[in-house]
């Protein structure tokens, strides 16, 4: 091994180790951490992956997916999004819906991995909501464009704080999807909705190899 590739290897190894430690840390300490710490850790972990030039896009996406999946409560998110319609779904349909909706979010937001341009996230505040949820306010700083305000709503599930909504510049993801799914479900069946999501996911998978 020449000196150059040795350097490369060492660098790669140390990054892997760091990520490993970060993942372990967030897994073991999340229970004790408050909502703000959870958002901070998640954002830091995601930015670390995005900024890691030694990873290919697909690897980045896979790692970010793992981080996000660990801190988002997709079942609650799905219930909130479907609201009253949730009960219309059979347990099997509910399961399918959660899976397809999760995949939809992953597919559509995973695209941004390729356009990462040194954005950073800073926490600007937090507050407790009347029902015990917490809202953590953040700002995405972009080097050559206006900041983007992103709020996260978190709920405590089994002593862990998990994200149940993302509010971008005042637009709640839950409210936005609720309006869309409500529209679809007034004129068609839950099966049709799940099928629509499935089709969209199959079409939108950009990094399928």
């Amino acid at each position: 091994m020449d000196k150059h590739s040795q350097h490369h290897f060492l660098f790669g190894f140390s990054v892997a180790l760091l990520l490993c430690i970060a993942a372990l840390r967030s897994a073991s300490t999340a229970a004790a951490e408050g909502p703000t710490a959870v958002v901070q850790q998640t954002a830091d972990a995601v930015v670390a992956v995005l900024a890691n030039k030694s990873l290919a896009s697909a690897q980045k996406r896979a790692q970010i997916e793992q981080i996000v999946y660990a801190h988002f409560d997709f079942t609650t998110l799905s219930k909130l999004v479907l609201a009253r319609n949730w009960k219309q779904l059979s347990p099997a349909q509910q399961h399918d819906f959660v899976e397809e909706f999760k995949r939809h979010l992953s597919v559509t937001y995973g695209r941004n991995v390729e356009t990462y341009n040194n954005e950073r996230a800073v926490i600007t505040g937090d507050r407790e909501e009347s029902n015990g949820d917490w809202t953590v306010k953040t700002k995405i700083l972009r080097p050559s464009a206006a900041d983007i305000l992103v709020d996260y709503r978190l709920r405590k599930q089994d002593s862990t704080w998990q994200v149940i909504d993302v509010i971008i510049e005042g637009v709640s993801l839950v409210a936005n999807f609720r309006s869309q799914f409500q529209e679809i479900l007034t004129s068609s069946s839950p099966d049709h909705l799940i099928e629509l999501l499935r089709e969209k996911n199959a079409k939108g998978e950009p990094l399928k190899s």
Partner: protein
Amino acid sequence: MTTMRPSRTTFLAIVLALLGLLCAPAGAADNQRSDGDPIEGFNRGMFWFNDQVDTYVLVPVATVWDKVMPNRVQRSLANFFDNLRFPIVTVNNLLQAKFKNAASDVGRFAVNTTVGVAGFFDPASDWGLEAHNEDFGQTLGYWGVPPGPYLVLPILGPSGVRDGAGLVPDGFMAVYPWFIDIVYTVSARAVDVVNTRSLYLKQVEEAKAASIDYYTAVRNAYIQRRKSLVNDGAAATKEESEDLYNIDKEVVE
């Protein structure tokens, strides 16, 4: 996108039409928790028309523009046109009694017009004089005027009766219609529109991909965004918060 340059009579006609709409079904739309859209048929037609114009005219032009123009130039042009919105933002801050923000806007305009070379650069933001997003629709909302029904305007896109009416006074306040020849005004507007669109090519594509029902997604995003702008990002009221997040009891049997 904002106004073209209609004549005064057109302005007047629009004002009257919009005021008429604002008086009538606004209350009814407010009762429903879902996004009120009493003229959905018209809106969907207009939305489709706008999308056609966007897809077949604006996007191809903006794509070429995006390829030809260095990103720095695109940003500078966007800064330049933002700077020209100074009277709109400042006057609407004054109308909402946000005097500190209005003072900051004046400082921002002064800095960016001089140090920022006629507004092509934005040193003011680095100096803590941040840009504000204000317009007459927000001013009306600030003083309690309800948004009224959702309204998709031709070419201008998603709006509402209140916000659509607000475009009229804002149009009068725009810097360039008043003392520049119409040819330059129209050309400047064209450059503004194409340049702005060129900066959002990816975002719009993503929004289309991310939505299951694009029309509803845009309508809901518009309504939420405007509400947030009117109350300057204040937390949702207890009722709204409960409607959105406390449905577990009904949902879990």
